[in-house]
Every structure is written in structure tokens, then in C-alpha cells.
């Protein structure tokens, strides 16, 4: 009652004396945090620092798979669409393509969120120890670099934004200079590698570590060496990748399948994972996913599980999943006979599939992905949004990258062979786990250290392809090898699709910058050929 009277009194005062009315306009948003009441102390940043990570989810949750399988996975030669009618797969790339736009949009959203954390840290005054800020800054810079790395690989010389934009004019900046994006990626990751802890306690598992930063930095440096012809970067890459190896924290899992099993997330082989937590809902139902802020699991199982082909359906096929991804014969043929990794990579005729037997006729190519899908039990239907973490950097990837840097940077064939052979050995040892029998003696033999550098790189390319198949590295690998002259895509690559082979051109080394961006930003130029 008292407040009511006060309110009436104030209103009357407002009516009678003009000046006091101004106070009545002092309202603010309700039910939200803001820059005044948040971003002040360590506790705030424990939460705020997760916002950039949260954006990672958006790339893997999308009703139409816009974030990853179409724009990132299709262009490679490992998989193809169920029918030959997909613009992305066939390199008929249009600047109006919504899937490319999704990659662009979500990456810059993650960058914005990182920039906000970095900027707010500067003004935060509730820290018990100022030096604690560096850790949060390191995390934000790690995610920022991760997204710029995606942007650089897909769109080239994209605008570089490393601060919070405050005017609309600032949002109209143009393409960056050659190398500028790579510079930022490197400096961000270097900062993160220096300021992030070596590991996290159980409650914080999932945050980036210094070795995650080092691994990503080494990888980016190899890309830079090959994209920009800066061979010196191989040495930097070796330093950073070697640091990961030398840390002793990581090792190859005995069971290759652990890398894709929900029961073995954040394992010793995994250097950085996207933490998927909210699952078990159906992405096609409207309003289940209330915001696009990043709050979900991955749609990987839905899109890659087997579907239907000309009226023949896998169990739980088309009505539950899209069955949009099929293994090309080119990938199947890449595997050496009896490679146990086949079991974890794709299903083919005769494989146990749920409670039945896989039939090649379910797929246009006769094989569908098993990675992240196995084990596919009958009770696994329907394959709703899954909470299985997406592995971003695995130790075997680091080993192969290090091998490549040693090979191309130092011509150190022996070192490369030794690293490759670590990966092959683990694969070889999986024969028993997978097939419960004794491995054939000639299974995945070690690569001889005496081979030529070219031969060794060919073996390296083979190993990367089979070890990391479907882990969305493939097209990026092809592009960088093409750029540095190791391969020539038109002649060396079979995309498993006649039109894809026919249509591929140099312009496809980069994706078109989304037309919406160009239409709203006159300073921005389109990549060549679009």
C-alpha cells in the first residue's frame, strides 16, 4: 500500500511539476543481464567465457545440416548426396546458398562473443587477481581463432574484426589483406597456448587447454605454409605440434572406436571436443529449439545414418532420418583390405546393422557412414539429436600433421614414417578388438623409412584420409595440397560424382561470400569466379 501511495504521489508530482517526470523514463530491460550487472568478477566470467563455446554447437545443430555436413562435408571426395542433385556437392556454388551463409554467420557470431569477453575483461574490476584474467582471455582467443580458421579455409580473406563494434559504419568493413586473418589466428592461439592451463579439473573438462591451442596453432601454420607459400611456417608448426606430443598428456586410444563413442568422451586421444549436452529431441519439430543461441547436441547421427534408396529403406530409415550422406567408392577403395577402421567408418553389405543386416541397396553407393553412428542398436531409434561430442582435434591428427610438417618442412622422411606408423600400429591392433580374431600378417604394414619424400607424402595423404574420414577435414586437406602443388584436384581427385568432377574449378578453392553480406556491405568484394 505504501508503495502504491508513493507511486500515486510521484505521478501527481510528475503532473504538477514537470521536472520530476524525467525519472519515470528511467527503465531498463527486465529479466536480462547487462554490461552493468554482469562481467565484473571471476564468477561472472566463469559463465560468460562459455558463450563463445556455445556458438560451436550451432555448427552441428541445424535442421538441414547447414552448419557442417552440406557445406563442409559434401565438397570432399569421401561422401556424396543420396542423389546427384546437390548444388554444394556438385560445386555449383551460388552466393545465395543458405548453408554457406550459415557457416559465415555462426562463425562471426562466435567471434563477436569472444570479442565481448575480451573487451569486458579489460573493464572488469571484481577480480581477486588481475592475472586471472589472462586465462579467460586465452579461452576467448582460442575460440576466436577457431572460427577465423574456419572462415579463412572457407572464404579466404574475410574481414577481420577483433574488437566489439560500436557503430554501424564499423560493420561495413571490407576484405582483409593477404595473411591478416592468419596473423590473427596465430597470435590468438599463441596467447592461448601461453595462458591456458595444461588441463582442467573434472568440473571444467571441455574448456580449451594450452595444448588444444598449440595443436590448432600448428595445424593453422601448416595451412598457412601451404596457402601462402610460407615454407618457414612448417618450423613453427613443428614446434607447436611437438609441444603437444612432448606434453605426455595424450596418447592414442587402444580402441579406435572410442574416438566416436559417447562412452569415451574427452579421452586421452582427444585434444579438443565440442561438448554436446542437450539431446534426445527431434530437430524437425518447430519450437523445440527455442533459440539459436547454442543449446543443443549434434544432428550428426540423424543425417548420416542410413536412409532409403528407390523404395528400399534401412530400419528406421527415411521417416526418422534423412540418410543424406553416402560413402563414395573412392573412399571405400582407399582403405587397405581388412583395415579395422572400415568398421568404424562405414556400413556395407552384410554388416550387422541394428538388429538386422546392412543391405547395400539401402544406399545409392552401397555404403553409409558408421562414424558417430556405431554402435547402432535397435533401441537407438529414432536417432534424435545426439549428445555425442564432436571431436575437433585428435592426437592422431596431431601426429599426422607433425609428420607432414617434418616431411615438407625438413624433408625428414624417417620422422614422418615413424609418426605415421604410430597411427597405423594402433589401427592394426584394432583388428582383434573389431573382428575378435587374429590379424592377417600383412595388415597395415609399417611404412618403410627408406621411401622417397613424395612417396611418403602420398602415404601420409592416404593415412589422413582413412584415419580421419568423415571428420570434416578432407576437402580442406585437398585444397591445401592443391594450393601447394602436391596434388592437382581435377586430375587426381574423384569426387564420386560425375557432375562434381566435371564442374570443379579453381573458384571452388573458396566458397562464395554470402550474397546477403555483399548486399549489405558495399566495401566487401566477392571471391573470384562468383
Amino acid at each position: 500500500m505504501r508503495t502504491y501511495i508513493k507511486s500515486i504521489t510521484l505521478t501527481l508530482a510528475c503532473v504538477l511539476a514537470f521536472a520530476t517526470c524525467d525519472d519515470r523514463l528511467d527503465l531498463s530491460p527486465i529479466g536480462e543481464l547487462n554490461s552493468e550487472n554482469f562481467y565484473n568478477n571471476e564468477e561472472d566470467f566463469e559463465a560468460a567465457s562459455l558463450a563463445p563455446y556455445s556458438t560451436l554447437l550451432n555448427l552441428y545443430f541445424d535442421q538441414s545440416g547447414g552448419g557442417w555436413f552440406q557445406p563442409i562435408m559434401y565438397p570432399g571426395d569421401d561422401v556424396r548426396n543420396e542423389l546427384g542433385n546437390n548444388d554444394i556437392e556438385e560445386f555449383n556454388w551460388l552466393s545465395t546458398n543458405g548453408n554457406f551463409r550459415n557457416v559465415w554467420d555462426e562463425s562471426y557470431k562466435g567471434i563477436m562473443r569472444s570479442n565481448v569477453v575480451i573487451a569486458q575483461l579489460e573493464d572488469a574490476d571484481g577480480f581477486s587477481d588481475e592475472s586471472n584474467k589472462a586465462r579467460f582471455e586465452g579461452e576467448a582467443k582460442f575460440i576466436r581463432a577457431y572460427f577465423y580458421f574456419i572462415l579463412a579455409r572457407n572464404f579466404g580473406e574475410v574481414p577481420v574484426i577483433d574488437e566489439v563494434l560500436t557503430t554501424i559504419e564499423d560493420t561495413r568493413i571490407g576484405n582483409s589483406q593477404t595473411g591478416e586473418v592468419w596473423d590473427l589466428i596465430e597470435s590468438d592461439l599463441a596467447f592461448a597456448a601461453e595462458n591456458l592451463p595444461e588441463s582442467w579439473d573434472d568440473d571444467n573438462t571441455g574448456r580449451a587447454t594450452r595444448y588444444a591451442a598449440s595443436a590448432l596453432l600448428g595445424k593453422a601454420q601448416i595451412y598457412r605454409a601451404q596457402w601462402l607459400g610460407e615454407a618457414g611456417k612448417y618450423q613453427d608448426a613443428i614446434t607447436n605440434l611437438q609441444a603437444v606430443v612432448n606434453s605426455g598428456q595424450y596418447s592414442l586410444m587402444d580402441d579406435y572406436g572410442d574416438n566416436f563413442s559417447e562412452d569415451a568422451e574427452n579421452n586421452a586421444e582427444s585434444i579438443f571436443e565440442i561438448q554436446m549436452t542437450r539431446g534426445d529431441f527431434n530437430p524437425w519439430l518447430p519450437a523445440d529449439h527455442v533459440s539459436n543461441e547454442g543449446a543443443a547436441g549434434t544432428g550428426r547421427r540423424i543425417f548420416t545414418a542410413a536412409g532409403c534408396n528407390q523404395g528400399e529403406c534401412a530400419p528406421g530409415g527415411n521417416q526418422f532420418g534423412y540418410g543424406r550422406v553416402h560413402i563414395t567408392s573412392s573412399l571405400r577403395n582407399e582403405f587397405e583390405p581388412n583395415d579395422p577402421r572400415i568398421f568404424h567408418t562405414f556400413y556395407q553389405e552384410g554388416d550387422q546393422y541394428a538388429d538386422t543386416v546392412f543391405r547395400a541397396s539401402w544406399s545409392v553407393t552401397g555404403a553409409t557412414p558408421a562414424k558417430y553412428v556405431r554402435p547402432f542398436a535397435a533401441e537407438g531409434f529414432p536417432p534424435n539429436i545426439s549428445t555425442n561430442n564432436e571431436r575437433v582435434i585428435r592426437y592422431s591428427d596431431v601426429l599426422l600433421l607433425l609428420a607432414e610438417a617434418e616431411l615438407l618442412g625438413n624433408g625428414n622422411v624417417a620422422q614422418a614414417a615413424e609418426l605415421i606408423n604410430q597411427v597405423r600400429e594402433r589401427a592394426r591392433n584394432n583388428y582383434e578388438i573389431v573382428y575378435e580374431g587374429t590379424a592377417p600378417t600383412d595388415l597395415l604394414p609399417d611404412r618403410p623409412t627408406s621411401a622417397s619424400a613424395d612417396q611418403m607424402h602420398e602415404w601420409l595423404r592416404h593415412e589422413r584420409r582413412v584415419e580421419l574420414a568423415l571428420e570434416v577435414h578432407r576437402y580442406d586437406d585437398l585444397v591445401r595440397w592443391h594450393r601447394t602443388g602436391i596434388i592437382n584436384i581435377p586430375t587426381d581427385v574423384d569426387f564420386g560424382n560425375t557432375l562434381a568432377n566435371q564442374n570443379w574449378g579453381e573458384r571452388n578453392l573458396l566458397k562464395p561470400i554470402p550474397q546477403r553480406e555483399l548486399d549489405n556491405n558495399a566495401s566487401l568484394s566477392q571471391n573470384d569466379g562468383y
Partner: protein
Amino acid sequence: MLIALWLLWHSPLLAQKVALNQNYRTTANYYSQGETQQSLKIVLKEYEKVYGVRFNYAAKLVSDKYVKHNKVESATLEESLKNLLTPLGLKYERLSDELVFITEDEQNKVKKLDQKRIGVHTEYTLPTRNIPQMSTSLSSRVTSILIERPISGQVTDLSDDSAIPGVNILVKGTTIGTVTDAEGNYSLLVPDDAQTLVFSSIGYETEEVTIGNQSVINMALSPSLEQLSEIVVIGYGEKSRKLLTESIGTVEAEEIQKVPVASADQALQGRVSGVQITNTSGTPGAGVAVRIRGVGTVGNTQPLFVIDGVPVGSNSSDPTTNPLSTINPNDIESISVLKDASAAAVYGVRAANGVVLITTKRGETGKPTINFDGYYGVQRLPELYDMNNTAAQIALIEDAQNNYNAQNGFVAGDESFLELHPDLLPGSRYRDINSPWVDNVTNNNAPIQNYNLSISGANDNLNYYVSAGYFGQESVVNKWDLERFSFRANGDYRINDRIKFGQTFTVSHQNIFHGVNSAGDGFLLANAARMPPFYEIFDTDNSVTGNRYGYEGNLDVAGGTIGNQNGLNEIRDYYKRDTRLLGGIFAEVMLIPGLTFKSQASVDLILERDDQWNPGHTAQEMGLERAQERRDRRGENVSQIFTNTLTYENTFGDHSINVLAGIEYQKISNTSLSGRAENFLSSDPDFYQIVANGQDAIDLGGGAGENSFVGYIGRLSYDFQNKYLFTATVRRDGTSRFSPQDNRRWGTFPSFSAAWRIGEEDFFTVPFISDLKIRGSWGQLGNDATTSFPHVFRVSANPDYGLGGDNTLQAPAPINFVNESIIWETVETLDAGIDVSFFNDKLNLLATYYQRTTKDFLINLPLPRISGFGSTPANVGEVRNTGIELELGYNTVFSNGLSLGVSGNLTTINNELISIDEGISEFTQGDGYRTAIGFPIGYFYGYQTDGLYQTEGEVANAIPDVNSQGPQPGDIRFVDTNGPAAEDAPEGQLFSGESDGIVDPNDRAYLGKTIPDFFYGLNINAGFKDFDLSVLFQGVEGVQLYNQFRRDSESMTGGIRAEQATTQNRWTGPNTSNDMPRAIATDPNDNNRFSDRWIEDGDFLRLRNIQLGYTLPETVTDKINLRFYVTATNLLTITPYTGPDPEVFNARARSGSQLEAGTDRGNIPQTRMFQLGVQARF
């Protein structure tokens, strides 16, 4: 000063003074703040009460005469009448103590024009009712005449046969006369030599009748169609139309009732120049897009709606429904549309798009009136899309696949070889299915009904209007059933001569029962139209236990799985309930004569409840796996308004002034709470009603927000001799939406207007022009409609991320681009017009030129995504709307009793973006709505086409196209119109303007616009004997639409979803077609890109409404006035548009942006309605 007045009002001294002056009397006009003068007739009525006399006069002597106040302490009747009548060229004769005749003063006779001089209305106080006696000489003279024969009869209204009380009947050339009683009857003794009787009454044409031998003379008077003397509601007051300096359009109750509408704003359609009303869909309760004088902004373009002084519309959480839909149109007395700055400026920062004032009915003096209105009707869909049947669809698929295989050299066995799905091959049972998906979801002859009962009346101290209404409308597309119950109680009460108070209240309850049909977006209808015709609606084999609708039969048929939305629509039950209390109380006090203080407190409370029940179903049933789900959301939206005004009006000789000062404070707040849960032990509604009874996935949600406004209002109206009129208005407004920095919350909005009534000048003697006024105005208005708090760095706690396994944590993230510098937009309006009446006001013309320039226009600007955000509220540039408004009315009554009124209006618009602020470039929204300098806002922007490639030879010479994999015969030829600007081009120039030998995004060009060149309305009213007819045409010209439904359904790529039958005219060889391309899977030439192929002219001329009424003759019905009518709505539409309805407005764009406005996604079209109604008055 305000403080002083406030205290004065409260002081005991003053109260005592008021109490003592029990006999203080005043004129009725005292309560009408807006007026500076009073009609003579009303003053005479006042005198009748005060002096206890009755006046008798020829109506034409009194009508059209106005008097001004002149306050003296007391006066005798004689003094008063002398002051009053002499300047007007009138005199009086007192026939008895109670009867006074007023006649023309022969000695003081002046020419007609001079009769328009203004008399002086003497206000008076009378200590007692001591009426001075007059000399007896007059009475004796009269007595000597009164020895003649009696004549009697009844006077009725020609238009509806109702009796007219108070008609003056005078023997021509004499002062002998009488008036009709409440039933319109009169009797009179006339001298033997009397030739002619004159019947006159305000509001009716005066009639003369030769007496001859008749002793009974009945007379039917035709209503006077003179509009100019009407009173118009303006912001915080009212004004005589003759004295308006502003541009204001009005619609009266009669017209509103002619068109059966669910929502009052629809009644404006076609009736007011400058106002374009577009229905957003044929769904009951759907929103209406209102555009006053074009589109001043691309942001929020809806005008401000004010109902009985309460700004409404901004406090509903659901932009897809109409803020006015809960107001009963039957209760509306008038609607005023304030179009220019001078009229709207008193609403300041929210008035930029114009203001629509809605005034509800109040009781009128006379015996209590009971009104009943009711109608029942049916709605029918217009012709819908012609879709392919199964055979045609399969042929199209096959054709698309064959062409694809042939073009790429694929043969059977290739992985990419396309072939018909086994389900579609000859012999498959699916080839025999042709399901009527659209018929299944439509509901032709859906009923619409409305019943309304009101009782009103008034006496000297109070008036009342109470009503109850029921409105029910089902949708032509299942299911969207709207029911509305509304109640209203309006009243005014006079405590004494100084103080009056009153209230305006309405309570309404609206309930919409629907399924997945989400209204407006046409989703359900468009989806049904595009369902593969070989898919079944119902299962034929009932293979699923408990299957309610059936889906198993469609599982993966032809390689597709499409949810059975028709079925989901049936089994899901959603309710959308709005309970609304809208109204306020006011008190009005006369502080000193002429000075009035008014205080009004109002509230607009909307309680929302949206609840839904989704029964669980399996994929076998519906194509989707879904658990039982219950959702329930409650929202509370409160808007409180407190308005205080002081009005002073007075006349000093030839000078009249009216001054208004006021303060308004409004606070809008809302909160909501929602819950959802899955899996209930019982599917009994009484059980699942309670969300908390759910077993799984119980989830809570909610939201809240608030806004406030403070405004200081000032207005001065001045006129000299009623000839030279001037109004100045200023409002200083504050809004909570913007940053407190640099005074960004406050704005001052001035306006000025003036008019010159040339027709009143002595020198103006054009005989056929009865009135002439020129007027002009200038002013500034604001618009703050945007997302609130764009300057605040807002952080949402919603995003999350998992750590330590599956531990989900909040990951608070920024949700807005912070734009601190944002302010309201300013609209500067220039307005010049002329009002002319010809032939005794039979023909009226209004012509106005307007120019609206919007500076800093406010929009949710699409941002480059590199900012991390999709858009932000921003001040962007300058937009100009110019045009002309014309209104022409002609009214006449023919000698045979046929009355005819024709009124037409036309508005032209030229919308152009003048400039874009530095740092902001041209921008595009949606598929291709571009905003760029020199073009209308949100114009269509895409590729131009030039027919089809017909031969290999043409293809060989084709210009390269970055979006094409190389054209083939039968593909569309896109035009190379433009190229990038040269290196040395001036900064800001993006294009060369010349062909550059390649078709690429630079070649996109202007394809059309969503803002019409002009729109118009034509209204014809006719009456003959007991019949009346009204016809309303309405049209729009020079506007384009984006037919997105056609883009989806003429894609020619051979998907299983049904395409339109027009695809059967596709290119199949040289010269088989030059506009419908070949069928080809994957569309390698990108034939379906956004181009002029999808842009169509959306012009239309529509017979919006036709109504024929019949009023029972009074002899049949005695004391009841009974009228029956039939109405047809949207009977005829002439349009080149190929979709079912050219009246398209994207529902999302209604409250928000003009961008994307003209997109037809398969909206539910406007229906044809046929109604039968009855109106009864007791």
C-alpha cells in the same frame, strides 16, 4: 500555473463557491472544448429551458447560423433575444407566455451572404426564474388571425421512414407554425388563404408543400447531406469541420455498420483518402496493415491507435493479431484519421505514421433507445490454385529427370542417374490416387455472425450507453474459430454546472480455437495445395491401432516423407484467449467560465492465455514422432495512462481562441509465464489442463518488459471572424526506449496550420460555390517504434554449454548490437489543400497536396553478419512521400424521392529514399527487398529475364552467367544490364550502368515496388422509398507482388510436391513456350533465382461491399423501426494477379517492417461473404 490551478480546484473556498451557485447555468457547448461557437439552434433550446418558453421558427432561418459567447450577469429574455437575433437579421414575436416566433427581420434584411454573420450568445445567470412579461399588443394581434382550419400529419425520414420529432412547420410568408412531437405528428391551424407549408429541420432538406384542400399532409424529409457542419474528433478535443485547419478524415458509425467487419480498422478501407488498408489474410481476427500517406519509414509503419483517449496496440505481445480486434465495431461512434502533422502533433513521438482516433458511442438526449443489430452470413473462398493431378505431376517429374539424365549423359546404372521411384511407375497403386488435400482443409460456407444489443439515453444530468455484443466467425481454412463477447458501459454524469465526470469501459473476451493453422502465413493452405496428389489423407487399411487420421499409407511413398499437417491440424487443439479491459474515467471541472480542467485515468489491461494440447502420435500416424504435450502460457499486459488537460476558450469580438495545455503519462508493462510438459497419465482435458500433471520435460518460461512515455501538450487555435483560422501545436515528449545520454529521450514536435475561408468573404460572390476554404500546415512528428533499449548492452542467460561431461551450464551471451546513438525518427509534413462546396453543398471537393519527409528513419537495419548480429535498430536516412489526396462527394434527392450520394477518394503516393546516412550502405532484406537512394523503400531487386533460349544456336551465343552451369534450350535467358563500377568511378558508385558481358549479381535491378502509385475508393449510397442501397468499390494501382507460392510451385525440378497446372505449358521444344521453362532436375541454369519471373502486378479493383436494405413502413411496425438487409462482400475483383487474392500483406510485416510486405506465401485469401441482417430500434 498548473500547480496554482490544481490547488485552486482543491481549495475549500472554491468548492463552497460552487455549491452556493446552485442556479448557475451554462450552455451545452460549454462541455465541448473544441468549439469556439455554438449553433443558434442549440442556444435557442437552452433558452427554452431557462426561460420556460417554446420557440417556433423556420429551420432554414436557424440552420447555418452560429453565435458566440458573451457572458453577462443576468438578462431578461428580451435582452437576450435581441442580442442574439438582431446581428443575424432575425427578429422575434412573442405569441404567448410560452410561445415565441422567430422570423426574418424585413427591415434588417440583408443579402444572403451577410446572413452568415455571427450573433452573440449571451450567457447568463438568473437569480430566479422571474420571466419579465411582454407587452400584450402582440398577443392580441395573433389572436385575431387564429381562426382558421386545422391541418395535421406526420413527418418522417425519407431514408428510413422513421418519425422525425421537432420538425418546424410554418405557413409560408407568415409566422404561423408548430413543431412535430416525438412521433413526428403535428397539427396546426392555418389561415384560409394559406398557400404553402414549409417543413424544416436541422439535418434535413427543407421542403415546401402546396396546401390546397388537404387537411392531412404527411411529409417525408430527405436527410441533408451537408457534411461540413459536422463535428470532428481531434486530438484531445473536437472541432467543427468548417473550421478545421488540419487534414483529418473521418468515418461515422453508419458507414462502419454497413460493412460487416470483425475489426474496426477494416471499416476505414476505401473510405478515407490517404489511408490504405490492406487485409493481411482471410483469417478471422487477422491483422490489418494501415498505411497513412505512404510509407514514411521501413520500420514500424502502423499509425498510433487511440481509443477514447487511450493509445493502444503497443502492449500486445502477439503482433500477428490485431490490437483492435477485441473492440466491438458496433460501439464505435466515429473514427478520425489524423493525417497531417498539425492534426497529429499532439501525439508527439508516436504520431509519425498518423493517428487513428476511435470514439465510442454515448447516449443522446431523448427517450431511451434500444438498438438491436444482428447478421448471419457465410464466407466462401475464391478460386484457389489449380494444381497438377497425379498424372500431370508424374509426367513433370519424369520430364525433369529425363532432361537431367540427357543433359549429363547419364544412363541407367550410373549413381547419379535419376529414375522414377517405383511407387510412381505404371502399375503402382499410387498412380490411381488423387487426394483432395485442399478440399479436406477448407471449409467453404464458414459462418460469420454478429449480434449486438445496446441501450442508450440521456437527460440533462446524465447520459448512458451500454451494450453487449457477440461475434463469431469460423475460418474458411480449418480450423480457426473466433468468438468474441464484448460489453460496454459509457456514461457522463453532471454533478452541477461546473463539474461533470464520466466513464468509458469495455470488457471483452475473445477466444480463438485453432489447430496448426497459425493464421496469416497461409502455411496450412499452401502446404495442402502442395501435398503430392498421390499421397493419401486417410489410411485405407487402418493398419495402425487407434489411428485417428492416418499416415501409414504415405510412409516414404515415392521417396518422401511429409508430415500430415491436415491431420495434425485436426488432432491438435490450441486456444488463444484474450480478455481485455479497456477504458477510463474522467472528471471535468470548469474553473472559471471558458477554462476547463479535465483529468482522465485510463487502463488497457489484456490478459492472454494461450494453451495447447498435442496428443501424442507416432510417425506411422502422422509422419512425425511426438509425445503428448501440453503448453500453457499466461500473459498480462497493462497500459496505464494518466492525462490532464486544461482548455480555455473564449471569444473577444471577432477573435476566438481555444488553448489546450496538458500532460500525459503512460506506462506499459507486461509479464508472462509459460509452462510445458510431456506425457500425461490421462488424456482427459480435465486432467491435462494442469501442466504440472505431466510426467516428463516439465519446463518453465517467461518474460517481462516495460516502457513509459511522458508528454507535455500545448495547442492554440485562433480564428478571426471565422474566416481566418490558425492552429499551433507543440508536444514535448519523452520515451523510455532510448538512451538518457545527450537528451536522446526527449523530443519537441511543433506544428502550425492555417486556413482561410474565402467563401465567407464579402467579395466572394461566385453563385455556384457555397463554401471555399484553403488550408495549409507544416509540422514535425516523431516515431520511436523500435526494439526497446537499443542502447543497452543486453545479455541473455539462455545459451548454454556443457562442461565436465553432461553438466549443462548457462553461457550468458550478448543479444543485441548496441546502438547508443539511436533517436526517434522525425517526420516533417507539409500539407496544402482546398475544400470547396458547390451548389448549396450538394457537391463537395477536398484536394490536398502533401509531402512527408522522414528524417533519421528508424528501421531494424539488416547488419552484415560480420558484426555478430543480424540486425539492429538504427536511424538510417531520409525518405520522402509526396502525393495528392482527392475527395469528391455529390449528394442529391430527386423529385421522385430517390436520394443519391456518391463519394470518391483517390490518393497518389510517390515514395523515394532521399539519402542514407554516412556509414550505412544500401541494404537488402529477405529474398530481394532492396532499399537504395532514388528508389521506393523496399523495392523488389533481382534479375531481369528475356524469355527462353529456344535453340542450340541461341544457347551457343549465350552470355556467361555465374549462377548457371550453362544454359540449354528451354532455360531462361537472364539479362546482362550492368557491371561493376570502373576503378576511377566516384566514391559510392557501385555499378557502371552498362552491360559487361557477364550475368552476375551486379545485374540485379529494380523489378517493382510494394507501395502503390495510387489507391482509391468509390462509395455510392442510394435510397428510394423503403429501400436503400450502398456500394463500395476499392482499388489499388501501380503496385507489384512477389508470388513466392508460384516460385515454389513452378520450380520445374521434379520434386514430389505438387506443382501448379501451369507447369503443363512448359517448354518442350523450340517455340513451345517463351515463359514457362523446361522441366529439369537440379535447375542447373538457376531458372528459379529471384527474378521478374516471380514479380507480378498486384493492381486490383474490388467491389468491396454491396448492401441492400429494406425498412418496414411505420404503418406495419408502429413504434419499432425495423430494417432488413442483405450484404455481399468481395463479390467481384478485377486483377491481373495470378494468385487467388491480390490483397497480400505479409503478416510479419504488418506491425513491423515494410520490407517483405508484398510477399505471397500462399496466404489465406480474402473471402466472399454473404450476409443477412436485421436492425431494430425501439
